[in-house]
């Protein structure tokens, strides 16, 4: 394999693995803030028990995110040095902003959140939980600024063979930043909610720590329903932006070859790139024109309008997107059903629902990964849309053998970390939260 392919595979592996952890922890952080707020207001011990347990799982997941995140910060230089030279004037700023404005906040206050139970006041502890969540969210913002600039570059001009900043505000708030940030945050809160939902369901199935599990389950369920519903709105907002700014990506997502009015949305299809057609397609006539442009008669550009060597890889973009949408619909159904059962007072001992909730834990993470595949593969062959090709961005001085070596190492190390992470999560679940009665005198006075 050549160095471009190897570096692309390595980037996909490392970012795909890394994203598992922020996608869970950003959402979980906000759920923990909610629990800490309840604890601060009511002083009820059950909230302390909940907070301690979820913070423990949070810390366990966060550290894998930190460990795999450092790699990302280095990899632009190690594997994509031509890219770094070309975009550094712009791209380095949001990366530094992410560290200075977000990572420090997140990491520093996480130390207090995890170790501060006996050292700081309840209010300072609550504040730390808030700062962790705020830090995690700001970090998502800046990394999405950086990535969105690759999708829809703005606020720059090309001089001396590189992109140079002309307006910081225009680069930060480029056309895709806000829709992509909101869609991503909606996704992460869904991931956090399903994580809490599934694990709480497990406790109820086992009949252990019932009070703890019921409260966690209810919280997660309601948040999960709200964000799964919101994701359709936010996803739509993002799709409208893609239609306006990256027509060939939209065409790949929906498998549109011919430019047409009343363009259909596809419920199903098998892209055939060579024959330039969709097989076994189930079309909803006019739906794409309507959804993307708000007008049945709107013209949607087809792939054939673009040179074939500038088409995104079709099958991966198309399938990823459609699978993501199908999963999104499933999240709404599952959480709506759960809320219905809650209303009918049949939720907490509905074994089938609880089991399905447990098995659904990874699905929002997978949906998020599919969304990122759609976004990043759909941008190809460009690394910076219409400015720089991925094949021209790689580090020319790194021998393929070295990239192959590091790729194999990442696969081994990350495989190991993943297995250990799951094993430790299960261990902590079996150990369970501490029981609300086991307070030391000092803790009682602290919560009083």
């Amino acid at each position: 394999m050549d160095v471009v392919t190897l570096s692309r595979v390595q980037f996909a592996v490392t970012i795909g693995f890394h994203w598992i952890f922020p996608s869970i922890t950003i959402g979980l952080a906000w759920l923990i803030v909610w629990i800490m707020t309840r604890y601060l207001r009511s002083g009820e011990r059950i909230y302390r028990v909940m907070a301690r347990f979820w913070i423990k799982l949070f810390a366990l997941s966060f550290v894998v995110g930190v460990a795999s995140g450092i790699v990302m910060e280095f990899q632009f230089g190690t594997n994509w040095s031509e890219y770094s030279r070309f975009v550094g004037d712009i791209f380095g700023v949001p990366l530094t902003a992410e560290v200075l404005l977000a990572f420090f906040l997140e990491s520093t206050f996480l130390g207090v959140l995890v170790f501060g139970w006996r050292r700081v006041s309840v209010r300072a502890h609550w504040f730390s939980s808030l700062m962790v969540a705020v830090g995690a969210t700001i970090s998502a913002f800046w990394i999405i600024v950086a990535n969105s600039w690759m999708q829809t570059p703005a606020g720059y001009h090309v001089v001396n063979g590189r992109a140079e900043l002309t307006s910081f505000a225009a680069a930060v708030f480029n056309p895709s930043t806000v829709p992509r940030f909101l869609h991503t945050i909606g996704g992460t809160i869904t991931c956090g909610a399903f994580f809490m939902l599934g694990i709480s369901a497990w406790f109820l199935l086992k009949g252990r720590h019932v009070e703890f599990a019921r409260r966690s389950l209810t919280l997660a369920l309601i948040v999960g329903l709200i964000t799964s519903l919101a994701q359709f709105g936010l996803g739509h907002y993002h799709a409208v932006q893609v239609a306006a700014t990256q027509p060939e990506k939209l065409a790949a997502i929906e498998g549109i070859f011919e430019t047409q009015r009343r363009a259909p949305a596809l419920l199903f299809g098998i892209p055939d790139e060579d024959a330039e057609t969709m097989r076994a397609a189930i079309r909803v006539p006019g739906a794409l024109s309507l959804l993307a442009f708000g007008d049945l008669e709107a013209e949607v550009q087809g792939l054939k309008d673009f040179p074939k060597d500038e088409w995104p890889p079709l099958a991966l973009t198309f399938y990823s997107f459609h699978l993501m949408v199908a999963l999104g619909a499933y999240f709404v159904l599952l959480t709506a059903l759960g809320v219905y059962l809650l209303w009918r007072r049949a939720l907490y001992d509905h074994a089938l629902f609880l089991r399905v909730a447990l098995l659904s834990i990874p699905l929002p993470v997978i949906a998020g990964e599919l969304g990122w595949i759609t976004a990043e593969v759909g941008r190809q062959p460009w690394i910076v849309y219409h400015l720089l090709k991925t094949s021209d961005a790689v580090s020319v001085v790194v021998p393929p053998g070295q990239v192959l070596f590091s790729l194999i190492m990442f696969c081994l190390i990350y495989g190991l970390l993943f297995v250990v992470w799951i094993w430790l999560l299960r261990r902590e679940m079996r150990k369970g939260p501490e029981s609300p009665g086991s307070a030391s005198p000092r803790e009682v006075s602290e919560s009083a």
Partner: protein
Amino acid sequence: MTALQTTWFFIIGLLLTAYAILDGFDLGVGFWHLFTKTDRDRRTLLGAIGPVWDGNELWLLTASGAIFAAFPPVYATVFSGLYLALMLVLFGLIFRAVAIEFRGHDPSPRWRSAWDAAFAMGSVVPALLFGVAVGNIVRGLPLDEAGDFAGSFIGLLNPYALVVGLLGLAMFATHGALYVAVKTDGRLAARARRWAQNAWIIYLLLFVVVSAATLATQAQVRANYEAAPALWVLPVCALVAVVMVGVLNRRGDVRKAFVSSALAIAALMGLWGAAIFPNLVPALDRPEWSLTAMNASSSELTLKTMLVLAAVAMPLVIVYTTWVYRTFGGKVELGEDEY
């Protein structure tokens, strides 16, 4: 050279110095981790860095982000040129991070000793390679006309860079041992003082060796010092600070010894900066191909934007980091929340 370019040369130096001082003691603690035998001592070592190591590591990310933003060609050349070395650093940092968190989740001795080894290796490998990288940059990297790295991995393991690597390792080991001495008491603190004393002898020795080797073999460094003789104050400060580390530790004043160690690190980083200025990456044998603060900088607007960002964010970071250090000040106590 514009004022902004000079400013960013200094800020990056400061960020790397903050990293070396702060994460330096974490790396040093990792170096000594396997020298302790009991689970309790090892938990105490991890407890000493537990709430702060992650924040400390961020100074490295800040520095690398700032190099990317302020001097993109430097980021591109150094990170791609030192590919294998950096990958080894990354593997080390990955293992260090997860080992700290994972170790305490299971009480079995085999589990714990596996992560103990991961923590120690994950600290020692980066601690050594950072110095090797510094040595190579003082010496100059083989670059081509386009500013790309034109050497090999083996070439980076030259004797001069390796000795600088060992100096860095001894420096971090001394610094980490003193941190342990400050954060613990009793038998462990006494042992940590002995560790610091042993490492310090090697630290002092290597400092003298590297200084002599640099003056003897690195003409471009000599030229910098001849051009601005006032710079000689830096090696003098460094020597005094390094010597004081051992003197103060012997006297039993570990807090002052630790501060002296931090100052020594700052002085050594200053020495490094003075040795290469205004180059960021001197080109070996072809000075005209060097990447400098002038020819490798970002646009004025980007440097200005970054300056505003740093001016807004850094004071905030310093305020709450200080608060956390105060909150977790004093000796380590092992409770249910600690590793």
